[in-house]
């Protein structure tokens, strides 16, 4: 009895600590300007207002940044899911020369932090004329070792007989991929898509570097520079945080089963 109360009490306390900052962000985002700057901090808006959101979208150009983030994250997701799935399936099921060595080299490269590549990548994209473009922001995410690994783990369980049967029926490899493999891989595709979308949406350092042009900035970059200009406008900044966090949080809540599954395939079975 006591043990159960302790376990559930502690869990409840931890959950409150985890969620309270987010709930409070939402509350403050509906407060009048200046209302949050009181001691003790108010928990609830006295007369809720959409003023901060109007201010963000009409004056601070938040709509633009929202579109930028959505375009970049969607683009990264579509391309990377396709490329990683093609490669992951090839590494799992298609025999080709040098397959094992290539895959091992890929896994070895996983230990290199992405920041090492940033300076030359910036120069390369500058040469290609891709600095200050959506494409430039998307480039590092268009294919990923982790994604290939994830698909490979999952695709290995596809029965060879299924693929052989399709080959005997005279189907080409591309057709087999799109008509047999992709449908069978659907759960992992969803997982892959969530990872790619969340990763691209939440990324900060690369968009900060490659998108100097203010009109092209993503939400996190715009929010960071807004918060430097508007250190005092807490209510406005909280509304900005809501706009930045809400889309990914909702996506996670709706698809969390797939997300958790991918997290486990990617780490524990590694």
């Amino acid at each position, binding site marked *: 009895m006591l043990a159960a109360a302790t376990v559930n009490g502690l869990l409840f306390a931890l959950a409150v600590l985890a969620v309270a900052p*987010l709930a409070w962000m939402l509350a403050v985002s509906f407060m009048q300007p200046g209302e949050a700057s009181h001691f003790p901090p108010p928990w609830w808006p006295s007369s809720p207002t959409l003023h901060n959101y109007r201010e963000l979208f009409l004056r601070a150009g938040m709509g633009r940044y929202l579109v930028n983030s959505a375009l970049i994250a969607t683009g990264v997701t579509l391309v990377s899911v396709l490329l990683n799935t093609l490669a992951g399936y090839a590494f799992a099921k298609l025999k080709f020369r040098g397959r094992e060595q290539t895959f091992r080299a890929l896994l070895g490269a996983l*230990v290199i*932090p992405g920041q*090492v590549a940033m300076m030359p990548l910036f120069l390369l994209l500058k040469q290609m004329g891709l600095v200050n473009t959506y494409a430039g922001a998307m480039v590092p995410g268009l294919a990923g070792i982790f994604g290939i690994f994830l698909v490979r783990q999952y695709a290995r369980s596809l029965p060879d007989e299924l693929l052989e049967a399709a080959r005997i029926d005279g189907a080409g490899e591309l057709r087999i991929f799109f008509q047999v493999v992709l449908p069978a891989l659907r759960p992992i595709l969803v997982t892959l898509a969530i990872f790619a979308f969340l990763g691209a949406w939440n990324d900060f350092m690369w968009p900060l570097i490659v998108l100097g042009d203010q009109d092209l900035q993503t939400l996190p970059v715009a929010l*960071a520079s807004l918060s430097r200009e508007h250190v005092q406008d807490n209510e406005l900044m909280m509304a900005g945080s809501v706009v930045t966090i809400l889309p990914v949080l909702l996506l996670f809540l709706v698809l969390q089963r797939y997300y958790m599954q991918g*997290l486990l395939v990617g*780490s524990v079975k590694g």
Partner: protein
Amino acid sequence: MKPSLAGWAFAAPALTVIALFFVLPVIAALGLSVTDFDIYALADQRNLRFVGLDNYIKLLGNPLFWKALGNTLYFVVAGVPLSIFVSLAAALLLHSKLARFKPVFRTALFAPVVTTVVAVAVIWRYLFHTRYGAANWGLSLVGIDPVDWFGDPRWAMPSIILFAVWKNFGYNMIIFLAGLQAIPEDLYEAARIDGASWWRQLVHVTLPMLGPVLLLVGILTMAGYFQLFAEPYVMTQGGPLQSTVSVLYLMYEEGFKWWNLGNASAVAFLLFLLMTATTSGLLWFARRRGAE
């Protein structure tokens, strides 16, 4: 198309992207780090000169580099164990047979992980506000004077560590949960028959069985914590008194604020070397422990 040809054709697009936009730049970074690539070379590459190990030597003589390294190590050494401790505690609670509403709690505890660092950093900066913040309000309830969390060099880093643990613990919690579920129930039964308390079961059954998962979580968390950047960028801009300048923050400023790309590449490589050494050390330690 023959399957062997198809294999290469299917893998090629992804491999090309990785080779062109990751492997090639990493190799180029090694080259860049032995040049004096700066804003003049950016304008005209004829201004580029080979300087050998000069960048590295200059860095090792630069107090700010050591400061950044110290801050980053502080973040890793204090943050990683704290983060693992909270993750493990949360996982043990969630795994307990006594826990109710498990899916709800699991989702709530995981929520911070999927949020955007910059956006939640904005929230935490306010929670730690000297005059209006909830942190100081909590302290005032127990009669402790307000702390200038981000303005006091002694407190800026601990504040960032608290924030990072809050943001990340849910990730490891899920991995620990999976590890806990894989421990066979009869081990606990045997321990209970021997009269082992909850604590002895934890020390003699759970933790040893969780060993490999702990190692994996340790390595992943460490790698992540070495890459501290967005938090100081948004919350403190490296201050006060450079107490929150991390290695990557230094790299960013060197590279993309002052456009010393050669120097910045050297910083990146030194961080990479440090990460590799630490990970290898951890693996070596684990293997030795496992062998004995």
